[in-house]
């Protein structure tokens, strides 16, 4: 995984602030591959309580600002089971 401990803590704090302290987070995509360089930070979140649109947008903006990196944030929607959710959990790393 190509994130520092500080970056992981930053991600946890920002997401828990917007989506509840028990929100579950996975890093997936190119940042889990140690042989690659750069790349966006792809995150999948199962929130404690489903955030509204504004909270989700603010969370993404706060993450991008804090990390100074492009962030792609996928938030599980209640009652939906999209293939990307399974892919993120299977190929990703829980933070």
């Amino acid at each position, binding site marked *: 995984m190509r994130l520092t401990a500080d970056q992981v803590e930053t991600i946890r704090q920002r997401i828990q602030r917007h989506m509840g302290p028990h929100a579950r987070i996975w890093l997936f995509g190119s940042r889990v591959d140690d042989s690659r360089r750069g790349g966006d930070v792809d995150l999948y979140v199962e929130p404690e309580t489903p955030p*509204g*649109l504004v909270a989700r*947008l603010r969370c*993404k*903006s706060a993450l991008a*600002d804090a990390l100074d990196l492009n962030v792609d944030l996928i938030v599980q*929607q209640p009652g*939906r089971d999209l293939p990307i959710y399974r892919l993120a959990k299977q190929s990703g790393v829980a933070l």
Partner: protein
Amino acid sequence: MTEHLKLIRIKLDHLARMREYLAYSVLQVEPILLLKDWKALSPGQHESLAAFRVRFSEFQEHLGKTMRSVAMEEEQDVERFGAVLAFMERLQVIGSAEQWKLIRELRNAVNHEYEHDTARLAEFFELMTKETPVLLECFSRLAEHCAKAYGI
């Protein structure tokens, strides 16, 4: 007038035209927002939503570029857009950098995550109509600053 100021004038004129189109799109979309069932929208209604999405996005993007040009004219740091936003906040062109970033994220989301879930789609458009007056006000303040500061 310098070439750079002429360029800013052209950008402001373009934004003024875009503002009219965006305001028209809002009028077209508002009645659609009142509908409870978005599953049965007509092709014409989808067309109105699509036009609004494009006009909102283009206006936000063009306004951001014009703000950067004004910051450049004032010899501010424009390498990072955050610095441009901080300067625009000081000029009171934008209410806050946070609000601008929310609108920018909304623009990105509505273009890259275009929703097929009608309830979520309606949520996107409701927020866009709510934020449109904010964008229009930012433009008015930027134009006002340019008129006062540069006489353009």
